[in-house]
């Protein structure tokens, strides 16, 4: 009687599932009528979506003067929210791409929902720079195309244009990656459905059959998309940081920005994944697939990235002092003790102090703590962007132009409205597609299911023997 796999291996699928159980559990949320919680959540988020539409129409009708942004603080809530949303998107790609390359099996429980979150977050992010342009009907001017104005091309040397290229590429590649992963699962839903529903899923699943050659190509495609999404996701937030770092504003003009922004993005993204997963697993009863082990793994990523962010904050302060350059020193003194001191201390507390609690295994494995701290980090990361943008601009080169920034109701409505947009899209997603990747979970069942690797694993008996040997064989492959 031999141990099939090392006992340290985490159980990632509990409840003694068979392949059929997995299909049942993950497809049923799309097949049943919506629950009362879902309807309430949907009504609430659509109400905020309505508020968003109203505030945007107001902005376009009346002009950007309706925002609190002024001549000195010209990037304010809009760019703060843009960077915040883009950062949130990064965790999805990190989970689906980087963890695929690292062969982390726990990604399979959360990758589908996290990728969906990426796509919805990028949609929300895109709203802000587009409407900040003011005359939004001319937004297509950011695309280079032969035109009758010269032709007047875009400025390819500008980080703002790099951002356009990076974010549109990021959105479309994330969409391809997500949808290609979804196709086999949509085929599973299709094969369980009948009538019009079957017709719809037939269309959306592109005629998937599960042929061995198709699986082989599908895996090859997933791996390459993961391979190119990894530098892509790093490039996106690097380029977002270039929007600041290539400027001549003290406090923005720093070489530390790219790595610091990327770490912060992953940090905030994981916080949002946690917020969503803790609710999703409860409401859709997916505790067997998104286990405490998954949550703990994500909390470990958060303590790592949170610490990197903390080190970056302190490095910034140190370098400002060490530079011996009074304007740089003033920018950072002002950041900490200036008019927005409360935002700085809020950021420090939420992003640097609070994730340190995750060093405790007990807190890391507690659902309530995870949920609470994920909200705290979401708030903290919003503060970070606000601190970088508003504090720096409010005290610019000429003391006579110094000003203060307060959001108007329009900006507050647009921001809370994008939360409505985000949650509306996410709630629709939970109704139409399996929120956990069915095929990928089945593929790891024998190396991570509790009946094979858990404390009650069956070894050496006739029925379990087959599973155990399969698990062993799979281990050799990895």
């Amino acid at each position, binding site marked *: 009687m031999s141990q099939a796999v090392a006992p340290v291996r985490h159980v990632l699928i509990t409840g003694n599932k068979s392949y059929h159980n997995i299909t049942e559990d993950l497809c049923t949320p799309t097949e049943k009528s919506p629950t009362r919680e879902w309807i309430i959540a949907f009504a609430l988020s659509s109400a905020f979506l309505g508020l968003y539409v109203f505030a945007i129409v107001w902005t376009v009708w009346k002009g950007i003067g309706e925002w609190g942004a002024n001549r000195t603080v010209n990037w304010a809530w809009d760019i703060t929210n843009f960077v915040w949303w883009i950062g949130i998107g990064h965790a999805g790609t990190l989970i689906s791409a980087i963890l695929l390359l690292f062969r982390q099996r726990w990604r399979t429980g959360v990758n589908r929902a996290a990728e969906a979150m990426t796509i919805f977050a990028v949609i929300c992010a895109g709203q802000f720079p587009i409407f900040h342009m003011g005359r939004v009907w001319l937004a297509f001017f950011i695309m*280079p195309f032969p035109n009758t104005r010269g032709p007047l091309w875009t400025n390819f040397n500008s980080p703002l244009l790099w951002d356009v290229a990076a974010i549109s590429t990021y959105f479309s590649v994330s969409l391809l990656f997500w949808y290609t992963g979804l196709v086999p699962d949509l085929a599973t839903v299709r094969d369980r459905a009948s009538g019009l529903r079957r017709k719809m899923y037939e269309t959306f*699943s592109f*005629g998937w059959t599960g*042929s*061995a050659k198709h699986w082989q190509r599908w895996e*090859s*495609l997933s791996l390459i998309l993961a391979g*190119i999404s990894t530098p892509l996701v790093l490039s996106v937030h690097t380029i977002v940081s270039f929007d600041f770092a290539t400027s001549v504003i003290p406090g923005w003009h720093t070489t530390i920005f790219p790595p610091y922004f990327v770490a912060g993005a992953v940090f905030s993204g994981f916080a949002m994944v946690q917020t969503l997963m803790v609710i999703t697993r409860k409401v859709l009863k997916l505790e067997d697939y998104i286990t405490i082990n998954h949550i703990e793994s994500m909390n470990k990523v958060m303590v790592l990235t949170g610490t990197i962010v903390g080190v970056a904050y302190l490095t910034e302060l140190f370098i400002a002092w060490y530079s011996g350059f009074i304007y740089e020193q003033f920018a950072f003194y002002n950041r900490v003790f200036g008019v927005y001191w409360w935002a700085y201390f809020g950021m420090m507390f939420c992003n640097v102090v609070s994730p340190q609690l995750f060093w405790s295994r007990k807190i890391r494995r507690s659902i309530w703590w995870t949920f609470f701290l994920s909200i705290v980090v979401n708030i903290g990361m919003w503060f970070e962007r606000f601190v970088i943008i508003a504090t720096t601009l409010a005290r610019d080169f000429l003391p006579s132009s110094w000003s203060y920034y307060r959001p108007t109701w329009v900006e507050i409505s647009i921001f809370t409205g994008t939360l409505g947009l985000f949650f509306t899209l996410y709630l629709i997603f939970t109704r139409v597609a399996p929120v956990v990747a069915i095929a990928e979970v089945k593929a790891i069942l024998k190396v991570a299911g509790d009946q094979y690797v858990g404390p009650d694993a069956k070894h050496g008996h006739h029925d379990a023997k087959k599973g155990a*040997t399969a698990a062993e064989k799979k281990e050799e492959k990895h």
Partner: protein
Amino acid sequence: MATESKKVLYGLYNDEEDLKGAVRAASAAHLDIMDVYSPFPVHGLDPILGLKESRLHYLGFIYGAIGAIFGFMTMTWIFTRDWPIVFGGKPYWSVPAFIPITFELTVLFAAWGMTITFYTICGMWPGVEAKSLDHRITDDKFCLAFDVTESSASDVDNLKGFFAQSQAAEVNVKTI
């Protein structure tokens, strides 16, 4: 893609290990396997089945290279030939500033090119009807299929004998 219908004899297995055993036995007996279907990618199946590695990634490299060249050359042409403008006293042909967009276009072209190629060579597209042998293949059954359109009755009996021997849970015939 062949459009005429095929008569297919197929066996369903309950576990991927049974399927792999059956595929091994079938290739040892020189049976001509039409295809194998499974609810998830079964690792270690490709070499037994004699499937060569997918060449999709070579295409990915080519698409990426096209994207890189297209992006870089377009920016070069615009800023040196079509409408040269001085930005911040830098040269017209400011190569480092072109790197981010060149990179993004490399990724964009590689991803779209590979994905479109994947769906095209698999014959998959919205509106394509799935030639599915059994609706449980996307759930928990592993399927080994033989094309018996032109097989004699004795050949079919031979294959049925093979399925019985390899402990298939079910054996059926379907025209797709």
